[in-house]
């Protein structure tokens, strides 16, 4: 009798310890673009609320697949999923946080945020039409900067990625030619240049190849002290990549008329708006298998909306405007069964 009773006692103790911890766990998978901020939010939320986020940055496409199959509590995607697909999969889509992309260059003698570029010029570089850094079109925008007779080497993400989706959306917005010839997507048919794997691959390639231009998430550019550039926005002003210019872009967005929150933050109005800003999205089943876990996902993002702005800022991401947060909370209440 002694051994079994000891055994049951220990089992009981184990289940007492294990059950609450398990109930507080939520799982998510998908987008790589917001992965750093989700990781930090996860740590902070665990300390504050006991919710334990297990997020796997496996890529937006794979994240969509996982939530369609309901193998995770929520999916995450950089590109908004279209309404028909959301409907057939019975998912609610809402934005989590916003971020920005920067163009990075490697030209001897050119410093951080010194070079001025426009979307049209970048498009022509990636179409292989402007091939030298001392092209008259670039020189015209950069009086006072000595630009060498150096071949332009465009670099892009070779792996499918949300970053590429945002970048090609920007090029499609500013150039009808790019839109018809290449288009936008997580991977596209590139016309010129070389591909590298991941943000770090693009950054390393740009660093190694003189004359290279590439694109990375701004957080990545700041952390690695890459040579970012100024860009001309829709208002015609040259702006530097900064939290102020990102926030300006977010404020000028038309959130009310975006179905399923599929907001377009590319090349928005406003004198100080940074042109390449994007929201990243969460996909949550409307008919969750496990209502407790689903409620915990909402609890987590509610916490993140309220308390996560500073963390987002420290990583160069931008929190959602308060009005949008409230709208999302209303959607949770109305549409998620719980």
């Amino acid at each position, binding site marked *: 009798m002694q051994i079994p009773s000891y055994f049951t006692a220990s089992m009981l103790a184990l289940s007492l310890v294990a059950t609450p911890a398990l109930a507080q766990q939520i799982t998510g998978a998908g987008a790589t673009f917001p992965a750093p901020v989700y990781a930090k939010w996860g740590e902070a939320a665990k300390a504050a609320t006991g919710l334990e986020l297990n997020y796997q940055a*496996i*890529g*937006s*496409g*794979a994240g*969509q*697949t996982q939530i*369609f*199959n309901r193998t995770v509590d929520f999916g995450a995607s950089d590109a908004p999923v279209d309404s028909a697909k959301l409907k057939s999969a019975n998912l609610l889509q809402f934005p989590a946080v916003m971020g920005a992309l920067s163009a990075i260059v490697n030209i001897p003698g050119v410093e951080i945020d010194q070079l001025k570029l426009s979307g049209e010029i970048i498009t022509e570089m990636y179409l292989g039409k402007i091939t030298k850094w001392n092209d008259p079109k670039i020189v015209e925008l950069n009086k006072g900067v000595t630009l060498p007779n150096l*071949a332009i*080497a465009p670099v892009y993400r*070779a*792996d*499918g*990625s949300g970053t590429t989706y945002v970048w090609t959306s920007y090029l499609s917005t500013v150039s009808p030619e790019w839109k018809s010839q*290449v*288009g*936008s*997507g*997580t*991977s*596209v*048919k*590139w016309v010129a*240049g*070389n*591909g*590298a*794997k991941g943000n770090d*691959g693009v950054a*390393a*390639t740009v660093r*190694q*190849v003189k*004359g290279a231009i590439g694109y990375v998430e701004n957080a990545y550019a700041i952390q690695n002290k890459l040579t970012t550039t100024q860009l001309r926005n829709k208002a015609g002003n040259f702006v530097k990549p900064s939290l102020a210019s990102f926030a300006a872009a977010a404020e000028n967005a038309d959130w009310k008329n975006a179905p399923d929150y599929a907001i377009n933050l590319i090349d928005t109005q406003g004198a100080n708006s940074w042109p390449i800003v994007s929201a990243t999205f969460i996909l949550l089943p409307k008919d969750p298998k496990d209502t407790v876990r689903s409620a915990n996902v909402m609890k987590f993002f509610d916490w993140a909306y309220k308390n996560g702005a500073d963390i987002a800022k420290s990583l160069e991401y931008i929190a959602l405007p308060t009005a949008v947060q409230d709208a999302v909370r209303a959607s949770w209440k109305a549409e998620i069964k719980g």
Partner: protein
Amino acid sequence: MSQTANPPRRRGSIGDMIFQALATGAGILVLVLLGAIIVSLLIGGLPAFRQFGVGFLTGADWDPVKQVFGSVVPIYGTIITSILALVMAVPIAFGIAFWLTELAPNWLQRPVGIAVELLAAVPSIIYGMWGFFVIVPVMAEYVQPFVIDLLGDAPGIGFLFQGPPFGTGIFTAALILGVMIIPFIAATMRDVFQTVPPVFKESAYGLGCTTWEVMRAIVIPYTRISVMGGIMLGLGRALGETMAVTFVIGNTNRISGSIFGPGNTIASLIALEFPESEAGSLKLASLMALGFMLFVISFIVLAISRMLLRTGART
């Protein structure tokens, strides 16, 4: 293949029967696995084959936005990098094996032999990083500008050496692959060179042959088949290599005439595009179909090598 008659089976030895069943099962399992992989790749890739038909094999487009997929560029890249890698690796591997078996002093043979085997055990990601951070800058700074200046305008062959010096590209990928497969080929060659009966070589030396003449007239003819097998082993690894190639090939879906131009291989394209392919999409089917093509290419390479060996054995 010679048929050996089964030895007469003794009745009642259950242990023997169980062992035979297990061994047969293990043998059949390999066949079943192979068949299952081919079939599942084919079924997965069927939507792509159905959509594009022969166009999947002849199309040079890989356009996820317009949903047009063709496999010419990755197939070209796979074959050209592997062949270039063999061209670089085989002479060096032969040199290593020749030196180890015929020329090296006894006390050096073992350490160098072990070093070669250790090289074979280095994970491919290490070769990839080494290639990207060490070889690519050297290629971009020195080798490519020099060669492009020297030969870029040469009549006839100039187009092979043109383009901006990125450092990455077909040639760099082939170079890394070459280094990766040298130890495989060298180790095989050394092992088979050692199987030549000493009496053959001694007879040749007795007739006054030089070391090189012994190698050419005795060792190579004697070991030809196994040497070929070692080379095919290296080629097989080069065809399927993923990580190291992804780092240094430049990853573009265009065929460029220049050997310094960027390209793509089947394995690296699959690795890069897989995470952003939704279940049920045409892109995923096309990636599966590409996997099937890689299988077919490997099979053809193996078949050709077998054929070469058979004709070699007959003469």
